[in-house]
């Protein structure tokens, strides 16, 4: 995987965005791309939480490692 601080920061920010979207779906404030137009959407919230975790993991992989 390409290592760069810029990429790592970008993926970290993406992770935060996914976390916010997950929270909005979980409390029912976000209704985009859902089959019912009211209430919380736990399936969507879980998906974006997983995407957030994946983004944070990818950010850690993209971070240049210092030699010990």
């Amino acid at each position, binding site marked *: 995987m390409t290592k760069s601080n810029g990429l790592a920061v970008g993926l970290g920010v993406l992770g935060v965005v996914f976390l916010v979207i997950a929270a909005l779906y979980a409390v029912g404030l976000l209704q985009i791309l859902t*089959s019912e137009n009211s209430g919380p959407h*736990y*399936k*969507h919230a879980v*998906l974006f939480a*997983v*995407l957030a975790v994946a983004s944070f993991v990818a950010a*850690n992989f993209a971070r240049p*490692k210092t030699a010990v």
Partner: protein
Amino acid sequence: MGLLQGASELFPVSSLGHAVIVPSLLHWSFKQSDPSFVPFLVLLHLGTATALLVLYRDQWVVIIRGFFTAAIRGQIRNDAERLAMLLLVGTIPAAILGVFLEHRIKSLFASPYVAAGFLVVNGFLMLGFEFTRRRAERGVSREEQESHFAQAERISFVAAAIVGACQALAFLPGISRSGVTIGGGLLAGLRHQEAARFSFLLATPVILGAGIVEVPGLFKSGVPIGEYIAAAVLSGIAAYASARFLLRYFRSGRLDPYGIYCIAAGLVSLALLEFGW
């Protein structure tokens, strides 16, 4: 239904296709529009996922440990860590497509005729996977053939993502999730048994996740929870037995018999439905 779902979920013959066709042919009173149908399916899937977790319990412990170690370190250093990351990469496309498309696709194609038609397509897909694989192996003995192919941990990340995304094809009733993922694994260069193992490992988080998020629906009034739990247990037992059988079968077996079965079952179902069975 529990036995049918548990057995057909892991065999490359489409559980959804069978769940649509068989009740229709046998005049069972399952209606997908019934409010208690979703909780029923949820419990059956939880039964299947539990069976897969029990079957691979040791591997899941290593995979989960490998995931956290690699994620925190930011580096992959062994096969378990690589497999954990491959499963994450393979699960994401399936999860995205599942959340946004599953309901729409299933409601569009939930007809016994369509399911029987796609079952025939699934059969040709299985034969196609094997044909492609066999062409690459011409002139080599059966044992040698398998030894030239890789273990699940060696699949590329791009291939894992593509195999994972292929799971979305299984939203079409008649197309088998395990069939397309095993076939995808074969095209990516895995041994048959390893392709089946990767398929089952990949299916576990998706089936389990889809089941768990629907659990609140189980507590609605009018859901005969006792009967549904009994069906889920049967589903789990059937899934466990199916997985054990398939892993043994794929040491030397191929997808062809399942392809032929799907084509025959699809055509017979179409004929029976057409002539008002």
